[in-house]
């Protein structure tokens, strides 16, 4: 299906959602990250915790996505990436992304985020260089795709908070999961 079609589907899906102010989400997320930074000794374990929380959110959020987005099964991983970038991100965070940088096997790509509502009011001091502030989103994508039996790896590779020009998430397809898999989180 075409990119235009997905853009439209994302708009429609978002219009059907209950809304909350983006600022409130940003403030809440900021407070959460602050608390994690206080609780954990190492910044890396904050990243891990954020990713884990995202994963838990993703495995629940995907149900709502499948129910409300009106998107059918994806043809291939390229299709999946477009759906995440144009429909899922739009529907939940009211932003879209561009999918670029495909490798030759079409198993890895980069999502270039046009905007990230979590980043509002945020400035990272130099001492926090190791913090992947938006890592939650990566967890959501991983958790969501795992529920549709697709194992991926997903992480921020560029972040405007760290002085990069754009925010970019690297997304890589790993394998299709068999029906019975172990829920690593429970």
């Amino acid at each position, binding site marked *: 299906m075409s990119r235009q079609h997905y853009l439209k589907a994302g708009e429609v899906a978002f219009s059907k959602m*209950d*809304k*909350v102010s983006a600022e409130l*989400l940003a*403030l*809440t997320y900021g*407070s959460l990250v602050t608390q994690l930074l206080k*609780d954990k000794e190492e910044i890396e374990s904050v990243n891990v915790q954020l990713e884990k929380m995202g994963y838990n*959110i993703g495995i629940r959020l995907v149900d709502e996505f499948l129910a409300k987005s009106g998107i059918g099964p994806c043809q291939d991983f390229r299709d999946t990436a477009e759906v995440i970038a144009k429909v899922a991100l739009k529907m939940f965070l*009211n932003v879209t992304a561009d999918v670029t940088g495909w490798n030759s096997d079409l198993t890895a790509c980069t999502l270039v985020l046009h905007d990230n509502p979590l980043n509002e009011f945020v400035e990272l001091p130099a001492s926090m260089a190791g913090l992947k502030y938006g890592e939650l989103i990566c967890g959501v994508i991983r958790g969501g795709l795992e529920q549709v039996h697709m194992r991926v790896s997903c992480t921020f590779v560029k972040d405007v908070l760290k002085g990069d020009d754009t925010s970019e998430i690297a997304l890589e397809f790993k394998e299709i999961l068999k029906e019975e898999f172990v829920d690593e989180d429970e």
Partner: protein
Amino acid sequence: MVDETVTLPQPPAEVAESPFILLCNEWIRYTSEAFMARQQQQQQQQTDSKSNPGAAADGTTDGRPVAAGAGEGSSSSSSPSSLSSADVDGVMVALEEMGFMLGGKIVERLTASRSRLQDEKDIVKFICKDLWNYLFHKQADRLQTNRRGGYVIQDNTLRWLRHMPPMPDTAPPHKRPMAPVSVICGIIRGALTHLGLSASVSASVAEPPCCSFSIKIPS
């Protein structure tokens, strides 16, 4: 002639509510589990130091006072069904603190472009209208006062409780309706504190999603 086309500030962009609710739930769960883990660790240290007096020094290096009644010989408290009420209260206090932090920040944003609220009544009204609108897209359903610094805010359809299934008393603390309600208590207290009123806020959930918050402002 003055150009009338002044650009109004953009309304704040919106996002979907469900990821926000799920995020709050994850945070509640994290806070609750982190509290329980600390509690268990302390208990462990206490039993260790009882059975092995030589380890007593290690058991207290944490420097935290062990909550009264929490560690009294209840070695079975590792299973969630035998949570002491002190543990549950402790979790709710931790959640309230988390809300407190958030409440201050929210009000800082909300009041950035308005004059200072002086009157106690105006401040409480601000909570019922502006803060409620910001959090739940509606105003609180009812506000009562005893005119002596006591206020009760009632909401019949608290959004954050809408999707909570009924939970037995044995459910882990983060799954009880009291969990998000404790956070909201904290948000209210944080908001009041930021507006210059130190108050105590408590809540009762008679029948979710109906909920009432009582505010006591010492004169």
